[in-house]
């Protein structure tokens, strides 16, 4: 029983632990004065020395014509390099607290059977890239960091770290949007930060690998995947999941009982071979 839970939920449990402990460390930085992690996800200081900054926020600042200090430039660079290596959207599934909200909306949606009724998804998953472009244009035109002033992600983590206020309303809106209006609506369609990290992680190294020989085509992976379009190859072809919108959440790996999906390191050489063959 316990081993079953472990094998089917190990990444989910690990993700919840990292997401919650990062938030707790930030909150302890504010309320208790711990210096392990101070600030919030927009910009922070690790161990009182290493700056970490949200590269998308810095990009908006740049577009708004703000002076960029070396401090946040270094911070943004560290974050960009990290996610470019481990997978851009690792932020989304392992760090971002909004992920907990949208995952629970999705869980409830599944349990209530909404997905069987509303099978068609009426919105494009590329909206996020358009929102990303729009945010940079608005930042330039209004000379203000446009998305940072409405970002429900920032509202959520600031709410957790610095006190809730009306932040619960923003969280509720996202929850209801994902539950009733659009499956994976916020994280999988709208969020420009997710779009940004998709672009950052285009060439990232940690990738899920699909082994078609083991696959029994149960399609459990496609049911749990919040970006199911990246799993197009399942039961068709043995290859790595190279879609940049994959969040490396590991849900597909843990629900697969046939050892057909596993984490792997991106095979750079094979990549080139494939391209040549084409």
């Amino acid at each position, binding site marked *: 029983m316990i081993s079953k839970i472990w094998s089917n939920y190990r990444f989910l449990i690990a993700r919840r632990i990292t997401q919650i402990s990062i938030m707790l460390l930030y909150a302890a930085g504010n309320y208790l004065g711990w210096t392990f992690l101070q600030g919030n996800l927009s910009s922070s*200081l690790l161990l009182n020395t290493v700056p970490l900054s949200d590269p998308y926020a810095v990009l908006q600042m740049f577009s708004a014509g703000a002076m960029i200090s070396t401090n946040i430039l270094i911070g943004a660079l560290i974050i960009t390099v990290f996610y470019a290596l481990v997978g851009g959207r690792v932020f989304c599934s392992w760090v971002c607290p909004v992920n907990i909200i949208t995952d629970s909306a999705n869980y409830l949606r599944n349990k209530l059977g909404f997905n069987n009724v509303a099978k068609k998804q009426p919105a494009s998953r590329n909206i996020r890239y358009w929102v990303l472009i729009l945010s940079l244009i*608005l930042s330039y035109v209004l000379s203000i960091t446009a998305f940072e002033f409405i970002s429900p992600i920032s509202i959520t983590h600031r709410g957790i770290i*610095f006190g809730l206020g009306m932040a619960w309303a923003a969280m509720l809106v996202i929850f209801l949007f994902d539950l009733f209006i659009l499956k994976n609506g916020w994280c999988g369609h709208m969020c420009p930060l997710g779009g940004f990290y998709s672009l950052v992680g285009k060439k990232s190294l940690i990738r899920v690998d699909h082994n078609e020989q083991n696959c029994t085509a149960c399609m459990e992976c496609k049911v749990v995947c919040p970006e199911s379009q990246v799993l197009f190859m399942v039961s068709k072809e043995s290859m790595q999941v190279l879609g940049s919108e994959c969040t490396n959440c590991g849900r597909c790996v843990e629900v697969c009982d046939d050892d057909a999906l596993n984490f792997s390191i991106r095979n750079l050489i094979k990549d080139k071979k494939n391209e040549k063959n084409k």
Partner: protein
Amino acid sequence: MEKSRRSFILGSVRAAGIAALGGLVWSAYIDEVRANTLILRPPGALDEPDFLNACIKCGMCVEACPFDTLSLAKPGSNKPLGTPFFTPRDIPCYMCDDIPCVPVCPTGALDITKVTTDNKLDIDKSQMGAAIVDTKNCIAFWGIQCDACYRACPLMDEAIYLEYEKNKRTGKHAFLKPVVNTDICTGCGLCEHACVTKEAAIRVLPREVVLGEVGNHYIKGWDKKDESRLQNAEQIHTTTKISEQKPVDSLNDMGDLLNDF
């Protein structure tokens, strides 16, 4: 072929419409929150428009403040979301000598050079706002003895001083009227915090809201320093119908006036 072209055009127009709608709502909201000018920022803050695009909303200043003076604007407060501010009537700025909130700012939205003199941190240089006295509701202006704001002021006798005036009503008392010198006032808000009236009769507001500006038409002729503003002044020549001639000629020119007689 025809159909796919149509659906492509329809799709693009639809996308453009949604983008325009979203962009307008989005920018309208940002304009709305930006319109609130009654916000007091931490020491060393850049001018409001620069501050708003430089602040990354990380809250490091909030965490550094030992008095919990600063907080980040929350949804529903009608302030630009996530930006730091303080409300002096609740908790004023206690003007720490080491100014912990400023050096921690990663972006320079809180500019350390704005609170530095001779390479040393100098909180007295900060300009968070300016105090202003409501002389109608200040009891010192009624003649009742109160100098709460004056004594609370960390720059006593400089930023707030007392003006003595004979109280003609009683004939034997004095008014001790608090007057703010906005050149020196840092806007810390200790006066507003100390004010004894139900609603504070001395308040700190952003400097752009409180301060007037004389402009170039008036110079203190008795003040050498102020007169130096005239150094680069240029005469402005305006030509109108009348000034085409010299003034005297213009006055003596009868023109056709006499022809009527």
